[in-house]
């Protein structure tokens, strides 16, 4: 029995797999993050301008090797260094070293963005995926490092095409994705209750009523007891999130049935995304659905999870999807 469990465990983490997708993910993900660095540095500059008493330094900033706040001219040096590291990591020059330092810098920027009293949920997953990529086998596929260091006579080998290795890097990313999806679905039931599935909350956000002249709104719930209303007679228990719904979203918001179907579908999809860990065609289907799910969030609510879409699409086994002979 124990040996069976051990075998299953070993197979789950260490079964052989073609590693090329991690090299592709490195290029695509770091390449994208590289082009979004100006936005991150804009936030860093804003943060320097605001009273530092209003900053809540979380775990990531408190233990960051980069001090906060940065003083001039170090911000400028940091920006230049991170741009160079991003370019090196994308191209695959000193791949692991440049990727490692880029990851430290990206964690720092995203942590600053989340130290204003809100939480930047998109980069939460991305930052952790970067950490996995730093040490996962196969990340140097399609790198300049590999091209020059590999003595093989074939171009395929020198690029890392067909490179096979242990799959724990993939699996770790799948586990992280599962956790993020699961908790998103679980939180809706935890805080909103089963009634979240009636579609009213989705309809409210799709209608755009949570955003009014960029004024932050707050809500209370029926579970607030009279004793808990001592601050203001109301008992606020959450803030509302902002969305920039499209015209299509506003039309969907008017259909109660469609909103209920989408709400139920969202919770089921998020909570059962964990089935991705079973592998096989189901994994590909869930990854593609995840990409479609986040693309629809962008088109309907104006919230970008583009790096998530990239991660999901890079990890789909496209050979299997198009019924070509898979490598493994």
């Amino acid at each position, binding site marked *: 029995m124990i040996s069976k469990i051990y075998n299953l465990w070993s197979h789950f*983490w*260490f079964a052989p797999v073609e590693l090329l997708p991690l090299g592709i993910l490195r290029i695509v993900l770091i390449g994208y993050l590289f082009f979004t660095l100006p936005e991150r540095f804009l936030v860093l500059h*804003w943060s320097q*301008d*605001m*009273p530092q*008493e*209003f900053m*809540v330094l*979380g775990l990531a900033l408190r233990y960051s090797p980069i001090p906060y706040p940065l003083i001039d001219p170090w911000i400028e040096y940091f920006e230049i260094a991170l741009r160079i590291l991003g370019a090196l990591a994308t191209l695959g020059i000193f791949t692991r070293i440049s990727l490692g330092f880029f990851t430290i810098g990206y*964690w720092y920027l*995203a942590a600053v963005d*989340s*130290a*204003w*009293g*809100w939480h*930047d*949920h998109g980069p*939460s*997953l991305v930052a*952790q995926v970067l950490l*996995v990529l730093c*040490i996962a086998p196969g990340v140097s596929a399609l790198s300049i490092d590999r091209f020059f260091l590999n003595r093989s006579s074939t171009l395929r080998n020198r690029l890392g095409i067909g490179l096979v290795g242990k799959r*724990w890097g993939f699996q*770790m990313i799948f586990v*992280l994705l599962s*956790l993020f999806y*699961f*908790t*998103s679905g*679980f*939180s*809706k039931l*935890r*805080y909103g209750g089963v*009634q979240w599935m009636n579609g*009213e*909350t989705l309809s*409210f956000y799709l209608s755009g*009523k949570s955003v009014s002249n960029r*004024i*932050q*709104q*707050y*809500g*209370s*719930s029926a579970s*607030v007891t009279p004793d*808990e209303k001592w*601050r*203001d*007679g*109301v*008992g*606020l*228990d*959450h803030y*509302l*999130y902002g969305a920039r719904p499209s015209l299509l979203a506003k039309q969907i918001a008017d259909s109660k049935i469609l909103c209920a179907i989408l709400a139920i579908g969202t919770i089921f999809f998020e909570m059962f995304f964990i089935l991705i860990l079973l592998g096989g065609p189901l994994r590909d289907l869930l990854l593609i659905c995840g990409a479609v799910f986040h693309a629809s969030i962008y088109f309907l609510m104006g919230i970008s999870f583009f790096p998530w879409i990239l991660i999901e699409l890079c990890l789909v086994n496209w050979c299997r999807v198009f019924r070509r002979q898979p490598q493994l």
Partner: protein
Amino acid sequence: MQNIILSILTAVLLIPNLLAITFAIEDWPLTPAPMFAHYVDSTTPRYRFVFNGELADNTQKSLGFYSAGANWSLMRYFFKYVYGATPSGGVFAIFESDSADAFSNRLGKFFKSFSIEVEKRETVRLKHIELWLESLSEDNLTHEKKLVGIFDCTTSKFTKSQD
């Protein structure tokens, strides 16, 4: 070697994520993902805060969230880390045993920094700042308003209004 790396990743990534989900801890990058999770419908009461300043020349000035140079997430900071949510707020409720005195102290500290920043940026002299909570109609217009308290810029004290 691979087992060691896997153990380290599990300890550094997976266990903290599981703890954050289980105990509803939000500390970037850990999160139980509470976005859009609280139930809201078109009839749910919604509110907004208004900071109303009185200047030294007795004129009134509405102090927006941007007054301190920050973007609108300042109001999320204000709610979570200064004002405080009721326990049903989950990740937003970080003051387990809150009291009226602790509440006034936190708001006093916040408005002290806020007023200094406003005076610096807008070259004005503030006498006091009123904190109002406004309920919103379905069309996002002010429905009712209630004075939560007043910050005296001279004494740097926040006094909660009596119910």
